[in-house]
């Protein structure tokens, strides 16, 4: 991919490496300038930290979704998985602080299990992941509804909620640093290291051309299944942070799968796999959240968010399709 042949096509846009993070950094910078003009207060450490903290769940989901998408699949189940996790957590913890850590571990295991099932059904039973995870989405929605009689029960302990709500107070220069931001930074670094490891390269190779990967000795099904497990784990962490941020809610995860996919696409990751960086996906999520914040500052109705999101998906995929066809 590094060797770009100097074929000259007319009307060529400035050449950027496909899947690189430069475009998204540029968009992010433009948005930051716009926010700075409109609402300089927003860039003060205090509100910036709080913004990053509350964006942490969607950024983590974008990273999880990235693993799946770069390997050539989709995960539509993450939104309902987050909802299920929050509702399950509330019911199991039932406001009892002593149950916090066992439930946290259980949620992580549950997230990994859902990912494993998604992965095995997709790779072993050869069900397209779009359908597998759509089915999982519906199963989780129905199961949560059945289990809870349609209304959340119980409550989250303050100990559980602190991950998404509390912060290190009085940090020099930054002020208040949310725990969620710390979790995000640690996991983001882990994700980057993972993508630089053998596994990361294999994952991209599988997404780029599964046949070639198979022939060169990669067990494609195992790699892809692992990507789904990572996405499930990301959903579990996001659920812990989101539940902490806002408490029990039946809509905790509603629409997050599309948010994550939009972010990944915006971050320059090709749908269909094989191209893009995990940092791009996470920056995509950050950019999306910043765009929504900017819309808010300009008084644009929140109802327009999904429209904007849909527009971004279409535009980003169209741009990436043009770019790859002119390759």
């Amino acid at each position, binding site marked *: 991919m590094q060797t770009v042949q100097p074929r000259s096509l007319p009307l060529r846009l400035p050449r950027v490496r496909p899947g690189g993070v430069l475009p998204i950094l540029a968009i992010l910078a433009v948005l930051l300038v716009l926010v700075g003009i409109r609402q300089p207060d927003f860039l003060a450490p205090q509100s910036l930290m709080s913004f990053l903290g509350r964006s942490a769940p969607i950024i983590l989901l974008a990273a999880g979704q990235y693993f799946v998408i770069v390997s050539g699949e989709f995960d539509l189940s993450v939104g309902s998985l987050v909802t299920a996790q929050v509702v399950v957590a509330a019911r199991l913890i039932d406001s009892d602080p002593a149950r916090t850590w066992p439930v946290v571990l259980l949620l992580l295991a549950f997230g990994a299990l859902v990912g494993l099932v998604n992965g095995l059904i997709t790779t072993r039973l050869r069900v397209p992941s779009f359908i597998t995870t759509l089915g999982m989405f519906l199963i989780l929605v129905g199961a949560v509804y059945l289990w809870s*009689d349609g209304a959340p029960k119980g409550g989250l302990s303050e100990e559980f909620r602190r991950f998404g709500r509390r912060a290190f107070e009085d940090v020099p*220069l930054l002020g208040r640093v949310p725990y969620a931001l710390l979790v995000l930074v640690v996991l983001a670094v882990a994700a980057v290291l993972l993508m630089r490891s053998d596994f990361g390269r294999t994952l991209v190779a599988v997404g780029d051309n599964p046949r070639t990967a198979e022939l060169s000795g990669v067990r494609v099904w195992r790699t892809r299944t692992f990507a789904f497990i990572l996405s499930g784990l990301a959903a579990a962490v996001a659920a812990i942070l989101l539940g902490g941020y806002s408490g029990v809610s039946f809509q905790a995860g509603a629409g997050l799968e599309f948010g994550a996919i939009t972010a990944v696409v915006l971050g320059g990751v090709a749908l269909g796999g094989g191209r893009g960086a995990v940092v791009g996906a996470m920056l995509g999520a950050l950019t999306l959240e910043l765009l929504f914040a900017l819309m808010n*500052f*300009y008084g644009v109705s929140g109802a327009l968010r999904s429209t904007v999101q849909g527009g971004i998906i279409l535009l980003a995929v169209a741009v990436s399709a043009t770019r790859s066809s002119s390759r």
Partner: protein
Amino acid sequence: MAAIAAVTLLSLAACATDEPAASPSGSASAATGSGTGDQSKFFVQADYDAELALLDAAPTGPADKPWEQVLNPTMVDTAKFKKNGPHKICFSNAALNNPWRQVGFKTMQAEVEAQKSRIKEFVHVDAEGKDQKQIADINDLLGKGCDALIVSPNTTATLTPAVEAACKAGLPVVVFDRGVNTKCPVTFINPIGGYGFGHVGAEFVSQKMKPGGKVLALRILPGVDVLETRWSAAKVAFDKAKVDVVGVEFTDGDPAKTKKIVDDYIQRYGTIDGVWMDAGAVAVAAVEAFQDAGKPVPPMNGEDQLDFLKIWKDKKLTAIAPTYPTYQWRTPIIAALQILDGQQVSSPWKLPQPTVTQDNLDQYLDAGMPPLHYAMCGCTDLPGYPQRWK
């Protein structure tokens, strides 16, 4: 790539430091508050006047049992339904899909148990929030030999023909909570209603906040009559008090969305001086948004859900909680038994709609009950309290 992430974070932080202490939120007023906008098409002046009058009306009936009380009763004869017991009572329920209905239904089941010498069988069918299912449910129940039918309709217009068909079958029909467009049921039971709810909250907020302050109104969703009436009464109160309603937002009843919306408004305007909401489910999320932003919680209204009452007391908020009392789920059972006895009942049966205020907060705040319980359940004297509601 780790370097890129680090650089990005650093550059974000750098942007933060060279930002001057520029004009605060005042400059953001170009994003003008939408004000209260046009009046809802659900608004009916006569109903509004009637409900506000009922807020001050004195109820008849036992003072310690508001679920048996009636405001401005008009009695109807029920001698033709007189029947020897014990009875089979059937209930077609719109849904159990929110904590309010869960608490209400448990209260109704407990009332049935309390009356078990007079009720031989209680049949409950949950329509799961679907009109078509409820129409079928009512039709099925008509063939099951019920002595009386209780209906809590999912939607008003669509369920009207099904209720009319039940009336024609000859058994006494009692409708409660949401209404139907027919007078054929023996009685229709509900509390004062949405105008009263919305008015109480809005009047409190506009009186307690600083004059000329900014109010944020949070609504669940548009187009539902009980919620539209709440907002339309609040709009009248806010317009009269000439407060600056900077936003009217829909939350879908979702705490996460609510917290973000409130946080957005705090960011945009620097401060918000009053919060009104049409239902209490998201009240705690709104309070938390102020707490987490390090701002004082302004005067606001919630509902009688215990999580809100608790945070109200713990954090010494300036708050009020109009209610849509869950004790109304007891009344249909009582009414059905009275009708089957041939006793006169009031039609319509307007129940009082108490408000939780600073003065009576302690009386309703039961720390042992779960956060999503509704204080106004009138259930403390019922069998199985408190375990049944936990």
